[in-house]
């Protein structure tokens, strides 16, 4: 009896593992990277943010914010607007509808992975 229960458990765990790995393969690689995920999450929570605000929030460098924001912009996940305020350049980022949808989809996948491995 105990042996068959253990065998069942092993089969269940293995099938949950397969489900979790399938979900993991479907993850959006573009926003999976930490800095890009941070940018998208911050913009989703607050609305438009400036370059300096994002840098302070994510505690990262100018180069990191600039490189990762550009990749998100190329994918159409965020928009970037440049202007001048009191003669100082000001860069502001905003999440697009595609970006929000991508974050929601990414969250669904993460929850599915965690849910698949949770003991039932």
């Amino acid at each position, binding site marked *: 009896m105990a042996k068959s229960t253990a065998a069942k458990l*092993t089969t269940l*765990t*293995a099938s*949950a*593992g*397969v489900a*979790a*790995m399938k979900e*993991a393969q479907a993850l959006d690689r573009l926003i*999976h990277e*930490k800095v890009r*995920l*941070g940018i998208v*999450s*911050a913009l*989703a*929570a*607050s609305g438009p*943010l*400036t*370059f*300096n*605000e994002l840098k*302070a*929030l*994510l505690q990262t460098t100018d180069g990191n914010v600039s490189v990762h924001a550009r990749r998100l912009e190329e994918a159409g996940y965020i928009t970037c607007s440049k202007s001048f*305020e009191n003669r*100082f350049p*000001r*860069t*502001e980022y905003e999440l697009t509808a595609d970006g929000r949808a991508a974050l929601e989809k990414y*969250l669904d*996948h*993460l*929850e599915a*992975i*965690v849910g*698949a*491995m949770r003991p039932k």
Partner: protein
Amino acid sequence: MSSSRPAVAISDHALEQLKYIRATMERTGSFTAVPGWGGVAMGVSALAAAVVAAQQTDMRMWGMVWMCEVVLALVIGSAFILRKTRQGDRSVFAAPGRQFFLSFSPPVAAGGLLSWVLYQQGAWAVLPGTWLLLYGAGVVTAGAFSVRVVPIMGLCFMLLGGAALACPSSWGNWFLAGGFGVIHIVFGLIIARRYGG
């Protein structure tokens, strides 16, 4: 069993990512235009004002000392708000600054008018409690658009104001020192450390 081990690692990683998203979103919502270091500076100037005011024997002079402190605190507060918004490349007239000003001004303006009437009538005893109560009300209403620590600070001011009205009037100066001095310094340090200066 072999496929479940990497899957567990993937699941742990997914959980970490979820935590990271939540932490980032919480931190984003935690930015406040209220300047922590400005609060500390205002607190220090209020403590100095309390010491100077305590040495006055004429109540009109006592009132003048605190009036000067109000002007000084306004200058300090405005300078630090400008500094903090500029650090974030934001205009002080952007939505958060506007919301703060529109919510903070009415109770403070009411406090100013009430103070003038009480000053004219020589009702010195109720001035400290009135100032603390109405300033606290302004901070609570303005804090509704800010991080939670701001309305909590406002509530502390209001509680102290209530206590000042209930206690002997000779304690009034020290209630002002406790409110505009100590509360500003304590909460200023919390805001400065946790919410970006």
